């Protein structure tokens, strides 16, 4: 990435996107007051604030008073389900999105029309920042329905005037056919699905020259910088990182700009904090911690100091694009993604960085954890990339040893590496399950 190369900068809303920090602060405070008023209308926050002596928004004098407010967690949302966090009458609610509920009971976020409009607006800002215009053909390859990745980008790209193909996820051959037939220029997809397709373009019967793809917006799960490079190289496109979570609407909470050096988080709509996940202490810019967000524009389901469980860093300094909304790093992992192997903290993303650097190895991988003789053992399973297989046992064993060495220097823990046949590891078209932890089962 060349910071000195002049890039074309497009703004959806230049005044807001390049607003002065002091003006932004005033704007945030005013919005925060509205948020407090809305929060006090919910059962959940009414009870919580009563416990700490806050009965009206006048008890909040400045943004510094944010620190007085306890964190809101996923558990809180589960307990408040279904209507504990509803701040308006149901007749004003026009949509709701629930979580997958795979672990524990579900959570719900309600939206008024204004909430939806603001969500769409933020995404339109993000798409515009990455050069998407009405001339684009936008194929939305995310699941439609309760999952916010589908409808979120759909409305934003549509409102921007792009031709939206609501493809949904899966059926890879059909996805490629759509890309070819309709000259798709931009896609919205999960990183691991895009990686999966990257290795199969020819196998599916398509040629890169037949496609008109220019950009990919990756979201819904974290991915490494090397995974981005691999996708950019395979498709010859620009890949942009899009961050979001359904509790904060959905995708579009933060988006990279053409400089791909951090994701601009829209501070007119969110108050951003980074905390030490163990102690709750607020950390300064430049230090990695858990991202905590407060909604500033949400009417139906306001959330204060919501712990996202995503680990990130807020960048210091200004982006050459001119936007004054701060940038966050890519998500390094979720606080619950972190693996502890014999006392050492390891994130799957660290492992991914090493694997994606090796062209001989495919894009699918699995991390398996077992216990043997009281010790944790980690096995990384990868697939051989058929095109780079030369039939030499020596080469394969060298590859395996190289991977072992590089993994060891990254993770500080030794891992067993297994090389498997192409297509033999499990495949996911949505969010990937990269870790199989067998330790508790024994």
């Amino acid at each position, binding site marked *: 990435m060349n910071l000195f190369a002049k890039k074309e900068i497009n703004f959806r809303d230049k005044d807001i996107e390049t607003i002065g920090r002091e003006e932004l602060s005033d704007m945030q405070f005013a919005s925060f007051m509205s948020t407090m008023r809305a929060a006090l209308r919910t059962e959940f926050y009414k009870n919580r604030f009563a416990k700490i002596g806050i009965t009206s928004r006048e008890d909040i004098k400045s943004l510094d008073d944010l620190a007085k407010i306890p964190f809101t967690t996923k558990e809180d949302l589960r307990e408040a389900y279904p209507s504990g966090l509803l701040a308006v009458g149901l007749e004003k609610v026009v949509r709701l999105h629930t979580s997958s509920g795979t672990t524990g009971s579900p959570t719900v976020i309600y939206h008024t029309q204004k909430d939806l409009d603001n969500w769409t607006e933020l995404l339109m800002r993000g798409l515009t920042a990455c050069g998407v215009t009405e001339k684009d053909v936008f194929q939305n390859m995310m699941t439609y329905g309760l999952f916010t990745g589908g409808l979120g980008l759909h409305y934003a790209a549509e409102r921007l005037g792009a031709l939206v193909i609501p493809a949904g996820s899966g059926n890879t051959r059909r996805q490629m056919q759509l890309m070819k037939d309709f000259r798709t220029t931009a896609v919205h997809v999960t990183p691991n699905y895009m990686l999966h397709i990257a290795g199969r373009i020819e196998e599916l019967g398509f040629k890169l020259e037949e496609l008109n793809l220019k950009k990919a917006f990756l979201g819904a799960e974290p991915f490494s910088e090397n995974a981005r490079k691999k996708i950019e190289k395979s498709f010859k496109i620009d890949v942009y990182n899009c961050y979001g979570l359904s509790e904060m609407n959905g995708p579009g909470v933060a988006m990279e700009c053409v400089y791909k050096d951090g994701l601009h988080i829209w501070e007119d709509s969110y108050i951003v904090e980074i905390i030490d996940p163990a102690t709750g202490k607020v950390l300064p810019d430049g230090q990695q911690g858990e991202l905590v967000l407060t909604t500033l524009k949400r009417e139906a389901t306001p959330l204060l100091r919501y712990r996202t469980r995503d680990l990130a860093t807020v960048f210091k300094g200004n982006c050459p694009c001119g936007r004054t909304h701060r940038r966050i790093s890519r998500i390094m992992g979720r606080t619950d993604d972190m693996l502890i192997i014999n006392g050492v903290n390891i994130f799957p993303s660290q492992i991914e960085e090493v694997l994606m650097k090796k062209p001989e190895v495919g894009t699918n991988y699995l991390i398996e954890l077992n216990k043997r003789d009281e010790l944790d053992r980690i096995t990384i399973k990868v697939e*051989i*990339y*058929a095109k780079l*297989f*030369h*039939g*030499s*046992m020596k080469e*394969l*064993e060298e590859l395996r040893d190289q991977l072992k060495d590089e993994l060891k220097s990254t993770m500080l823990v030794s891992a067993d590496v*297994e*090389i*498997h*046949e*192409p*297509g*033999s590891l499990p495949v996911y078209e949505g969010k990937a399950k990269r870790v199989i932890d067998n330790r508790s089962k024994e």
Partner: protein
Amino acid sequence: MVKQIMVFVDNKPGRLEKITGTLSKETINIRSILISDNGQFGIVKLLVDKPDQANMALSKEGFATAVKDVIAVFVEDSPGKLHDLIKVLSAKNINIADGYGFASNSVFCIETEDDNRQGIEKLIKEKGFKILSGEEFYSM
């Protein structure tokens, strides 16, 4: 030139069967099969009568395959004759990666590490040995 096919396999039951099944469906005749493995994965080396067809069929089944030329040399079936051939190669520091002996056909197939197969073939011929063409070998 005789073509050798190398197939990457997971070391678990059913994989070899997938290979032999695929080849049998294509009515391909296996002339030789060598399996080397390290416990976790292996490489199956095949000499078949229709190597290009076999390679395509196996790739289509999802196997990672590679093709390499090997030299089929006519070696009289009597003591000392193979030794004479091997001496020729070691004298020129040519390393043999793998070899297949077909005693009843008097043929020895050599896989060398060296990529200069044409040079090696020339050397073997100069020393008086006969090299089989692909067709001659496949129809053995």
